[in-house]
């Protein structure tokens, strides 16, 4: 070692010593402490500070064994030799293998045809819950997408060994990287290719899917020059992915070289992320160089040209630097801005500007667009947007109205344009809501959610007269938020107003949606006649729609089935729910949320109708599906298990009911909180099961839980009546004949008020009241 090297090492040792000691010093005074320790040796202080600034070495966060497994996996034995069968597919050979799984070429022999697909499955040892969840998500996402430039999902399932697989369209072609290195790809061909990819990504965005990993390796170009976008392995569904960890997890999966800044920083990933990656792809296709970060010294308009210059002979021979100077540079710079809010608002806007540039027309990108300002606003008020989203999700999960796909599926241009305009107006209104002067809160404090709602509801009528469509959408949004807070009365009131506006607004799909929601709001309140009337209007509106969606009908029938069940009309309820299930199945995904909902409702109706075996079979199917596809604390899964347990108790299987309820209670508590009616309902069912099993303390627990249920749901709806009935039963078991009589009478009155004299529960109350009277006489 030379003397210099010895000295350098000695300095590094000192720096390290100082660094270690500095870590013990509080952050606030650390800098000063280091400076003091280093004294005159400024370089030393600087070296220590540089070390403190260094972060990364993320590889240390993973387990060494996990990494070993992944690396070992690369040469794991191929467990699917040629000729093996998986589902309907026969393996032809392996195509490639990644760390997580292997892709095989597979064929399916049909009636007179042979289909070839790319079959993908997870490697042994890689099938952790997280990986399986990711795999399932990819499958669900692919089933949503149908676009000529997106590799299609052909099939999927679970193999005999329990590992899932999916089969994609097998695409003959070359990777985009290979394609682009060929000298004869001229500017037009390259732009056309990016535009085709934009169309595919736009389609995905319309389905609320973000790809998140667009890069050359994920694009295949077929012989006729058209691209296919592959790999939705880390894609994400925008509105359903409420898991905050998902973003962080996915950040680990992203290919770093092509990641957008927000992905590297672990921030929210949105459609803007895909726009960044498309911009980066365009950069690479036009210049031959990967987009490099920190190239801020050059003016945006010159960056692309400068990159082409740098690439020299490595860049595409048919494209010259001067061609790329000016607007092309601005388009790429705008798409790849480090701040997601400054990028193009939509893929379409990006594609449009690209087309404008190619055609020699002026581009639309501006230094500071309205869209930019608007999104800055949303960024600043994320808490409200977050609240609204939470409220809506709560309604969807609790009330059972899953996402309205008509909105997404609306492909007709006119409707889409109108809706976009409406959405803009809605946004504008929301902004106005925040800006409304309010002297009481002049010092900048944020208004509370319910105050905002009240203020908004009052303003809709005044501020937007003459725009029924916008008003209706706003009323609907507000109603969902109220209902998310448990205010079904307010929700129904606003939906009634929305209903009055959309009746003739010329958008039957929207009208059907509003009416269905109104139906469920009334059902929550126990206003069954009004609920049925709203549902009838929903059906009529749906039929008037030029493109009636099966999913819409599934939703209408699901609510109808629920109302009819509460009314004790079990046969009609069953018919409606079976119809709902059938229509839901017509939508993509073997078991979409609508189908699950219908099945859950059907199982409950069958239980009430006294068809024990069928009911249990339906529940078991449902619960098994959830167990295989959803995490233990997913709300729909908990709901399914809860209703199953409740039915089991009523069907005379209290032990099974108790086991389920005790198992899920902690998760339910976590999800809904202490004072929620569902937790009280769970505790009622649990105490009832224990009571059936002979626990003498159980009736008191029922009484306690009923009190909590009544506190949570003061309206005398079906839930209230059921709780009252449970209370009566507990009093009866505890031997409190008088109290039991009073409670049965109260329950009976509630049932009559809600569903009429003919309701089976009314008869049951009467029967038990008679029993009580007889036993009393016997005592007397």
């Amino acid at each position: 070692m030379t003397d210099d090297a010895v000295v350098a090492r000695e300095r590094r040792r000192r720096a390290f010593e100082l660094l270690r000691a500095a870590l013990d010093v509080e952050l606030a005074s650390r800098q000063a402490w280091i400076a003091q320790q280093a004294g005159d040796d400024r370089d030393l202080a600087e070296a220590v500070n540089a070390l403190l600034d260094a972060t990364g070495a993320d590889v240390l966060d993973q387990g060494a064994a996990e990494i070993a497994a992944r690396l070992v996996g690369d040469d794991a034995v191929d467990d699917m030799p040629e000729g093996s069968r998986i589902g309907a597919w026969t393996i032809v050979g392996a195509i490639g293998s990644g760390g997580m799984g292997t892709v095989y070429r597979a064929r399916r022999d049909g009636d007179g045809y042979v289909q070839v697909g790319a079959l993908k499955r997870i490697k042994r040892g890689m099938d952790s819950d997280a990986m399986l969840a990711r795999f399932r998500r990819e499958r669900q996402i692919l089933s949503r997408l149908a676009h000529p430039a997106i590799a299609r999902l052909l099939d999927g399932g679970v193999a005999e060994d329990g590992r899932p697989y999916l089969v994609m369209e097998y695409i003959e072609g070359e990777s985009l990287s290979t394609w682009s290195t060929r000298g004869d790809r001229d500017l037009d061909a390259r732009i056309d290719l990016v535009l085709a990819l934009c169309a595919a990504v736009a389609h995905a965005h319309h389905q609320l899917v973000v790809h998140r990993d667009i890069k050359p390796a994920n694009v295949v170009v077929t012989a006729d020059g058209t691209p296919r976008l592959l790999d939705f392995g880390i894609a994400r569904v925008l509105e359903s992915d409420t898991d905050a960890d998902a973003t962080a997890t996915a950040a680990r999966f992203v290919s770093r070289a092509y990641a957008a800044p927000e992905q590297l920083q672990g921030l929210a990933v949105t459609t803007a992320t895909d726009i960044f990656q498309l911009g980066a792809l365009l950069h690479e296709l036009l210049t031959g160089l990967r987009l490099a970060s920190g190239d801020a010294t050059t003016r945006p308009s010159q960056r692309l040209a400068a990159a082409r210059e740098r690439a020299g002979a490595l860049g595409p021979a048919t494209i010259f630097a001067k061609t790329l100077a000016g607007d092309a540079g601005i388009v790429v710079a705008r798409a790849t801005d480090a701040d997601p809010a400054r990028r193009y608002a939509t893929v379409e806007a990006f594609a449009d500007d690209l087309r404008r540039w190619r055609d020699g027309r002026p581009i639309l990108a501006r230094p500071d667009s309205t869209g930019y300002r608007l999104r800055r606003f949303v960024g600043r008020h994320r808490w409200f947007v977050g609240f609204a989203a939470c409220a809506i999700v709560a309604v969807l999960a609790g009330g059972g109205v899953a996402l309205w796909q008509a909105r997404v599926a609306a492909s007709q241009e006119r409707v889409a344009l109108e809706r976009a305009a409406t959405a803009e107006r809605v946004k504008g209104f929301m902004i106005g809501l925040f800006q409304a002067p309010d002297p009481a809160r002049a010092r900048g404090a944020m208004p509370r959610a319910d105050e905002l709602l009240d203020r908004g509801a009052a303003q809709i009528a005044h501020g937007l007269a003459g725009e029924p469509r916008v008003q209706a959408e706003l009323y609907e949004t507000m109603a969902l938020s109220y209902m998310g807070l448990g205010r079904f009365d307010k929700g129904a009131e606003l939906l009634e107003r929305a209903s009055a506006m959309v009746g003739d607004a010329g958008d039957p799909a929207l009208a059907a949606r509003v009416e269905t929601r109104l139906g469920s709001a009334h059902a929550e309140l126990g206003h069954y006649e009004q609920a049925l009337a709203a549902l009838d209007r929903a059906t009529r509106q749906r039929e008037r729609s030029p493109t009636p969606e099966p999913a819409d009908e599934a939703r209408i029938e699901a609510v109808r089935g629920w109302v009819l069940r509460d009314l004790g009309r079990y046969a009609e309820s069953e018919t409606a729910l079976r119809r709902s299930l059938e229509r839901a199945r017509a939508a993509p995904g073997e078991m979409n949320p609508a189908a699950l909902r219908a099945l859950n409702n059907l199982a409950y109706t069958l239980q009430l109708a006294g068809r024990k075996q069928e009911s249990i079979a339906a529940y078991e199917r449902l619960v098994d599906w959830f167990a295989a596809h959803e995490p233990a604390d997913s709300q729909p899964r908990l709901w399914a298990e809860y209703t199953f347990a409740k039915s089991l108790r009523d069907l005379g299987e209290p032990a099974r009911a108790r086991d389920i309820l005790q198992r899920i209670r902690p998760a339910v508590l976590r999800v809904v909180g202490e004072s929620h009616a569902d937790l009280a309902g769970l505790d009622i069912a649990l105490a009832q099961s224990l009571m059936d099993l002979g626990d003498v303390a159980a009736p008191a627990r029922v009484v306690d839980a009923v009190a909590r249920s009544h506190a949570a749901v003061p309206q005398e709806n079906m839930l209230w009546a059921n709780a009252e009935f449970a209370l009566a039963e507990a009093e009866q078991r505890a031997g409190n004949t008088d109290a039991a009589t009073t409670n049965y009478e109260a329950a009976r009155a509630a049932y009559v008020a809600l569903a009429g004299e003919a309701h089976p529960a009314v008869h049951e109350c009467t029967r038990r009241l008679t029993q009580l009277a007889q036993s009393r006489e016997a005592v007397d």
Partner: protein
Amino acid sequence: MDESLTELLDAAGKGDDAAQGRLFALLYDELHRCAHRQLGGGGETLSTTALVHETYMKLAAADRLRLESRRHFMALAARAMRQVLVDRARRASADKRGGSAAFITLDDRVPDAPSTAGDVLALDRALTELEGIDARAARVVQLHFFGGLTFGAIAELEGLNERTIKRDWQAARHLLAATMGADGAA
């Protein structure tokens, strides 16, 4: 096994290079086997601790090791694990370079898959650098990351308190990150 583990460790501890070499080879093979077996068994997720522990149980089943021997063993096991990883990473990155350009990258991205091998190699280089700067901190990284030992267990082995070990780890992370960053940019 011809020699008992204790004998081997004793010999290695006395500076017998041949014994040290045999011991290392033994561990290296055993870790490889464990990793493969766990993978082939399916279902189970791998953990470093489990791997090293299994190796330890297997090799040390016959005789309980004294603390001194245990310390030696753990250090060796961690080093063997590091070697397993580095060898794997070398092979993986060689595959990548000469690899087929199969466009089906459907699942190419297990956490940072393309860079995992590179990361491991960069870490190995940075750790070697650290060994020259602060041997104890390097040992802590090796035992914790490659050996899967908790800070508490390392503290016991080193005869220091846990807080000191954690400080070592923290400081080492900064230095490794700095070295790896410079490495990547070069």
